[in-house]
Structures are given as C-alpha cells and as structure tokens.
C-alpha cells in the first residue's frame, strides 16, 4: 500500500505492490476487507421483531382515510383565475352571471 505525498505513513505502506491486473484486484480486495470488516459473525442478536411486524400488518390492513388528490394543473388553473380576477375585478359579475 503506497500513499503518495504523505510523510507519516507506515514504512510498509511505502512498498509498491506491482503486478498484473489480477494481483492489483487482489490488493484492492485486501484493502477493502481491512477497511470495512466483515460483520458476518458479529451480526448480534436483535430483539424480537414480531411486535413491529404486527404493527405493520395492522397499519397496512387499516383502511386509508379518503383523500382527494387534486392534480397540479387544477391548482395552477385556480391560481390563474384568482390572479385574473384580481387584475380585472370588473369581470367578477360577468363570471358570476355565467356560473
């Protein structure tokens, strides 16, 4: 492992591990294993997750409250109309007449 431009690295890090692509890959693999260790044997015992699972099942089974979904262009249209009426208030009676 060689760290360029670093004066405080370990002597063995200065050693260049020259070799073919397979050896290079092996070196990166080794470095990766050293940097991020396996947790296979250290997974630990978690608490029983069944209560959380039950909560999830209940939440999914419960009927969702009815929600009216308004598309964005409806909001844009309503906004445009409000702006128009604000700019030309004389049109309000005309609009009401045609409604």
């Amino acid at each position, binding site marked *: *492992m*060689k*760290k*360029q*431009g*670093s004066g405080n*690295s*370990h002597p*063995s*890090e200065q050693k*260049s*591990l020259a070799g073919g692509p397979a050896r*290079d*890959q092996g*070196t*990166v*693999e080794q*470095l*990766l*294993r*050293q*940097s*991020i*260790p*396996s*947790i*296979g*044997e*250290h*997974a*630990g*015992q*978690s*608490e*029983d*997750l*069944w209560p*959380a*699972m039950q909560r*999830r*099942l209940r939440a*999914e089974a419960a009927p969702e409250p009815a929600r009216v979904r308004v598309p964005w262009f409806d909001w844009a249209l309503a906004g445009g109309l409000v702006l128009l009426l604000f700019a030309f208030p004389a049109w309000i009676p005309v609009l009401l007449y045609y409604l």
Partner: protein
Amino acid sequence: MRDIASSPPEPVAGNDRDCLVQFRQGEGEACEAAFEAIFRLHQRAVRGWILRIVRDAAAADELTVETFWRIYRTRDRFEPERGFEPWARRIATRAALDWLRAQKPEYAVASEFFTALPAGTGPDPAISDEIRRKTATAFGRLRPALRLAATLAVIEERPHKEVAEALGISVTAVKLRVFRALRLLRKDLQLQGIEP
C-alpha cells in the same frame, strides 16, 4: 441463511414445509399463524443478511419488517418447493438495495463495526486509519448495485452463486460487478493519492 445469524432455530408450529404451504395457500387466521411461525423462524437470518448489506442495526430492523411485509404481500408467488430462504434473501436484498439507493452518496460505516471486531481479525497495522477511512469513503461513493455486489462477495466473502441468486442476476454478472467496483475503487483511491 440460518448460519448467518448463528442462532438456534426458534420453536415453530408444526412442520416447516407444512407451514410454508399453509402460508401460501391458507387464508385468514391459518395463514397469519403460519406467517408468524415463519417470521419467528427466519427473522434473525434475514436480519443478519440485511445487516451485512446496510451495516446499520436500526435500518436492518426496519428492513427486516419491510422484507417480511413484502413476503406477506406476495405470498401467492412463493413456490414452496424452491425453498423459503433463497426467496426471502432475494426480497431482502432488493429492500436493502432500495434503502442504499435512498441514502446520501457518502457512505459511513458505523464505528461499532470496527470496535466490535475480536482480536486476531482486527485491522492490519500496516494500513493506517486514514487509508482505511478513505477506502471506506471511496467505497461509499460507488453505485449501490456495485457496492452491494462487492460487499457480499468481497467483504462478507459469500459465494458468487449465493450473491447471484440474491440479486437475481447471473454469476458472471456478479463477477463483472465486483470487478467494476474494485476497478472504480482503485481509481478513486489513486485520485486521492493512495496507490494500492
């Protein structure tokens, strides 16, 4: 997958295979009872598998529940003769990949996984902490799909066949992903002035 968590099997109502068939075909309470038995039997193994990928205990708990929810929802597609564990592992891997994709690009390995290492498997003193940290950070910058393949195949040293089944791709594709991940990692480290 049970060996991952290395925990003794928990009591399960009736035969495992019967339970799986009941889970797939049963309705109402029978199905839910079978699901509970399956959950209790496999939860640790599924969590262990997810933890290997996400390396975050809280996220692993959450994703275990999410995985079993997906299993429950798609139970009609389950084929009991092909075994529960490969199917669960595949769904868990997909859920974990979704989680990885939703995370920030910078990947931080929880310090607890460094300190929890027993003597003898600790880091090589020849590699400084700075290099290890930079390698972990560079690894976190990889695309989640490449990172996942490299995590399972290189860091966790799982057989390529098992990784391929979990990812739903061929063994060749796994090898290719691992190769690309290591090549990109090498390039990233070189840009940081580290010559592996």
